[in-house]
């Protein structure tokens, strides 16, 4: 029971996501931060307000952190399908070091 709880807590803390999710977060972080930076400069320049530019930049960064850092379910929609450990799966076509595992 305690082990199970601990395992859950560990998973929550590590927040692992699948490979497709990693690709998404990589792209999302780069795009969101770059767009926030561009908007903060352009709006700040045309409004002649450097404080506004600062807060748009910081706000955009906060949004990026929220969108990318937690392991949202969107990033875990295509988990890797591992082979089962039991022998009821057909492993006759799996070869390790040239030997059939079947």
């Amino acid at each position, binding site marked *: 029971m305690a082990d199970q709880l601990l395992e859950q807590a560990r998973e929550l*803390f*590590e*927040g*692992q*996501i699948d490979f497709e*999710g*990693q690709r998404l*977060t*990589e792209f999302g*972080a*780069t795009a969101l*931060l*770059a767009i*926030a*930076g561009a908007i*903060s*400069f352009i709006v*700040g*320049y045309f*409004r*002649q*307000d*450097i*404080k*506004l*530019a600062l807060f748009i*930049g910081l706000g955009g*960064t906060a949004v*990026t*952190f929220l969108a*990318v*850092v*937690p*392991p949202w379910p969107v990033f875990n929609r295509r988990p890797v399908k591992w082979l089962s450990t039991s022998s009821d799966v057909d492993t006759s076509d799996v070869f390790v070091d040239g030997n059939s595992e079947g």
Partner: protein
Amino acid sequence: MHSTVVRAQNVFGFFTTVAFAVAALIAFTDIISPRTPKASVSMSKVEVVRGRPNYYSTKKEEYAVLRFNLNADFSSLMNWNTKQLFVYVSASWPNATSSELTNEAVIWDTIITNPSADHLQNIGPAAMKKLKKSAIGKTTDPSRGKINLKNQKAKYQITAPNGKLAETNDVVLKVHYNIQPWVGLLTWTPQMEFGNWKMMKGGVSKLFNFPALKVKKAAESKS
């Protein structure tokens, strides 16, 4: 990007890059923003008195006490990246021992701040209220760059290293400024044109002379 910690590190790392790039862009906008300062300065009153550099000093030196008029328009220097503008007036006169060197001393200065620093001003509540009201809804206030002083007393009495100042000829008052930006380079009064940055129009007074030492009861009791 497989775990929370790695994602947080990556986002923060790229955030620092973006912040640096935006700051560099902001600093660059200073170069394309036109600077066309104008100033006219003139001496209105000057006298030379004898005095001590401090209360306990036995040394007596000659001090020039000046009054001047200043009419300046620095509003083009107040843009979104201007944190504050430092304006100062100096008096300079030829060095007695060298034709290449000039003696120069600051007689007056002021700091022109942007509206976001208003709450830091050391002024009374009524003046503070008025100041804040003047900048309501404004992020920059170029009208603060306009200076109009008549018969302004110098803040600093000036002397020379040898303590002799009376009957010096060809003294000139000059206006200088120093822009302190939020991000970017500190810049002083340009000595040459640089793109949109024009040289200051005027800003130099006519030549005048320091008079002979003033002998007066007031000056004597002081010394």
